[in-house]
């Protein structure tokens, strides 16, 4: 097991150290200076732009997580109730779109929501509007659609697994004891599916926090996330220290969330859907 862990140390852990070091460098008109300085962090705290984009990122990630939860839970219930070949097929059909690149799965929304897209043309065809709606694309709302579309499997799957393990006799017993279906759901099914719910929420939240493709392609100017600001420091303004400092802040936030969730639920359960 040593080679595997060594690989992770060299390519996953040590680079984080490099990133931290670079975040303490200084960018100037003449290039990078390797003298230790807190300049980049000072820029982050002094310019409200960065606090705003971090806040917007967390808000978008949170809303995406809640939306995914709401649309995934009923589907997970549907899958858990199926039997035999129907079940295999239905689960496979949920999986298949997620096998392909999220660049493709984000791109598909351009011809859906653009001016000549399906939604606009359908609404014009039905006579509901007479000119294409522009705000379907390139807004914060579009980012929600894109992120939910790309990441919702990570919510559906763990909830489905925890519902699938649930013994249907428990629900029957609740019914025999006089519980209405709603009561049985609230008092029996929901509490037992919470490990799956938490695991799904953490995964979708983490993935959304680090999003770049979706906000870049669908977000326009109002739907930008921290990923776009970080990428810009490396691709356009060439300010490595500032990009590194922003990355360190994002990593700190994310690790904070995982740590809290991991303490409550256990890593094993969070990522492998196993009960302790």
């Amino acid at each position, binding site marked *: 097991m040593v080679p595997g862990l060594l*690989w992770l140390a060299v390519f996953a852990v040590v680079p984080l150290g490099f990133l931290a070091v670079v975040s303490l460098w200084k960018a100037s008109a003449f290039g990078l200076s390797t003298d230790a300085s807190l300049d980049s962090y000072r820029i982050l705290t002094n310019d409200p732009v960065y606090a705003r984009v971090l806040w917007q990122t967390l808000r978008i990630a949170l809303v995406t997580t809640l939306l995914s939860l709401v649309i995934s839970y009923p589907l997970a219930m549907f899958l858990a109730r199926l039997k035999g070949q129907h079940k295999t097929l239905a689960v496979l059909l949920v999986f298949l779109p997620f096998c392909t690149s999220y660049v493709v799965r984000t791109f598909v929304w351009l011809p859906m929501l653009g001016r*000549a897209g399906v939604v606009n043309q359908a609404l014009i065809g039905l006579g509901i509007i007479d000119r294409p709606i522009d705000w379907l694309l390139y807004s914060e709302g579009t980012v929600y659609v894109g992120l939910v579309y790309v990441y919702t499997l990570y919510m559906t799957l763990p909830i489905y697994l925890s519902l699938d393990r649930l013994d249907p006799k428990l629900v029957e017993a609740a019914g025999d004891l006089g519980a209405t279906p709603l009561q049985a759901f609230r008092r029996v099914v929901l509490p037992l599916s919470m490990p799956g719910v938490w695991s799904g929420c953490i995964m979708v939240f983490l993935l959304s926090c680090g999003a*770049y493709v979706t906000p870049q*392609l669908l977000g326009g100017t109002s739907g930008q996330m921290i990923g776009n600001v970080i990428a810009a420091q490396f691709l356009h303004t060439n300010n490595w220290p500032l990009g590194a400092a922003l990355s360190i802040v*994002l990593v700190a936030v994310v690790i904070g969330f995982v740590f809290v969730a991991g303490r409550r639920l256990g890593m094993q359960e969070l*990522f492998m859907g196993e009960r302790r």
Partner: protein
Amino acid sequence: MRMPRLLGAYAGAFYAFLYVPIAVMVVLSFNDSEIMGFPLKGFSLRWYGEAFAANELLGALFNSFAVGIFASIIATALALMIALGLRHRVPFREAVLPVVLIPIITPGIVSGVLLYVSFGVVGLPYGLSTAVLAAHVTWVLPFAFLTLYPRLHRFDRSIEEAAMDLGATPWVVFRRVVLPLIRPAIIATVLFSFTLSFDEFIRTLFVVGSQRTTPVYLWLLIAEQMATFLPAVGVVIMLISVVVAGIGFWVSGRAARLAARVEN
């Protein structure tokens, strides 16, 4: 349990949400129109012709296949070593899982710039065979581990012990007893790992240098020029991923059946 009608209808809507955008892309890829959108103007294969006429797509596909094959095999081998090691009492056993999960927990955009900065600071060259391969193996490894570990974990140790009692060396036990039993799981893991690497974008974009993988090529196509053959390129990429993943599901289904037979 009976399926409530409302739940069935909801599932229909969910599948529509998943598949309508993809269906639209497929339809547009055959649409004989200069603009990427509606109304439809008739059937045409010219966008596929144009997509492949530019040699960039074929080059990018070749690069993605090469990186995918190497990355999936290396990552599966490394993950297998960790998973096998975890079955024994090792020091810091509890710390292994969090370390393996680091590449998943690290936000995508940060993973993207991590190796860009590190290779830059150390002075190593960017490119497919260096930074991209390293980034892909690192990204795929946790998933390979998460697929392999449960298979190995449930595995009946007494079969191995019996072989050892009969005088087999650890290597022979692995080659002749463990490997044949987990071979389908390994093959499935390599295939899933391949699709993960084949589709990887954000960890590739920064470190790929002047070379192109398929998702990077598609991205630049979208960003630089809204080429009308974009849907065709999307369909090609999707088909490859779905076929490889489909084989993966098939193999892993067989692996699960084999495991069930051994366990009983």
